[in-house]
């Protein structure tokens, strides 16, 4: 069974702090995606990671992929309130078409 373990599921942090969200997946994959979802909204694509060692950065968010460890991370630097949202990782594994999603991390950034 394909699995994605995302943790933490809930993250409350203060503005200005750093933190990392982890995404472990159960089978070989070289395609890992991070999405952001605001309450009541759809999924917004943040990062597409296509190879081992890939690292991408956008503003205060940085994502990385280690295919050997089957691990992706989403690092938040100097968090601001606008980053409050739910973040999902997802990967293709064992199937050509089906994304397997993590359960999501609800991030709340407090002033």
């Amino acid at each position, binding site marked *: 069974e394909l699995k994605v373990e995302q943790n933490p599921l809930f993250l409350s942090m203060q503005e200005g702090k750093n933190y990392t969200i982890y995404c472990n997946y159960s089978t070989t994959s070289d395609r890992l995606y991070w*999405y952001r979802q605001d309450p*009541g909204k759809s*999924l917004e*694509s943040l990062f597409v990671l296509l190879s081992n060692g890939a690292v991408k950065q956008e503003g205060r968010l940085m994502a990385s992929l280690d295919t050997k460890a089957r691990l992706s991370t989403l690092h938040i630097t100097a968090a601001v309130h606008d980053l409050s949202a739910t973040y999902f990782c997802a990967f293709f594994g064992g199937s050509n*078409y089906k*994304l397997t999603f*993590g*359960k*999501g991390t609800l991030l709340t950034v407090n002033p």
Partner: protein
Amino acid sequence: DAMVIQNPRYQVTQFGKPVTLSCSQTLNHNVMYWYQQKSSQAPKLLFHYYDKDFNNEADTPDNFQSRRPNTSFCFLDIRSPGLGDAAMYLCATSSRYRGVEQFFGPGTRLTVL
């Protein structure tokens, strides 16, 4: 701008009254997906089309059907909505299989009274 459009954005229906949700895309993508997302959960794939080929997920209830009359449009029909079908329904597209990024529409929030 190329995009994925869903209509309506909000749909209220009565228990047992059929409802149809619409998705259109200007991306000319081969693959279209329908997801159901309930509160505080990850999206759950219901089915997808690769061109005209329909693929149903094994655990998708028979109450849910889909049509794709052409490349641009795809419809989700819920024949007899129950209270448990209240959710956000997301349409997504991709240019092909094999690990290509999926682009999501804005979603339709379905309420069942």
